């Protein structure tokens, strides 16, 4: 099972790197918000895999909070951009 967790985390890490690349390249602020949201989701998945790999579930409630914050943050940032139309 350790190999399985390792492979899963590696694939998630590669996905995270690709997302990070989009976060850096943009071009619009919306792309960055979206990439950040996806990145947080992938950290969420990676943390869950890490939890079962270490057999330690104490950080499980943290996942709920992080998911909530990512949602609120993305919606707020997108709303802010909508208010200032045309900004890139």
């Amino acid at each position, binding site marked *: 099972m350790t190999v399985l967790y390792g492979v*899963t985390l590696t694939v998630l890490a590669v996905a995270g790197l690709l997302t990070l690349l989009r976060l850096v390249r943009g071009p619009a602020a919306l792309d960055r918000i979206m990439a950040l949201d996806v990145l947080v989701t992938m950290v969420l998945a990676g943390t869950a895999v890490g939890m079962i790999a270490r057999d330690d579930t104490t950080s499980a409630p943290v996942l709920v909070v992080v998911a909530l914050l990512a*949602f609120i943050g993305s919606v707020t940032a997108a709303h802010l951009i909508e208010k200032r139309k*045309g900004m890139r």
Partner: protein
Amino acid sequence: MTVVRDVVTAVLLPAGAVFCLLGALGLHRFPDTVSRLHAAAKAQTLGVLLVLVGAAAQMSPRHAPVLLLVALFQLFTVPITSQIIARTAYRTHGLDRDRLLRDELGDRLARDGTPVDAGDGAGRDDDAER
């Protein structure tokens, strides 16, 4: 019982991770904001859902519901975020209109008399619509 749980995890974890990777690949390769959003939303819902359910299968019954709660929450929030980002992208010219076959929202807005101008966003007067 342990074998069943291990098999569930062994199937779901890689499947979810590969889905996340494909979503990230789409996020990296697709040409405009709206099509990138399309790829990102898939990774955020199905990819993470599979990983979380696969991880929950390995946990004690006391802790597994927390992960399932996160998965459920993700199912509710990602469509909302995507919709808001897509709407903002439409209004701030985040979509490549040359690639569109149909623009039904544009048709409807034109019919209702509140068209969004189809320019590329360059040189717009941002204060005009406030």
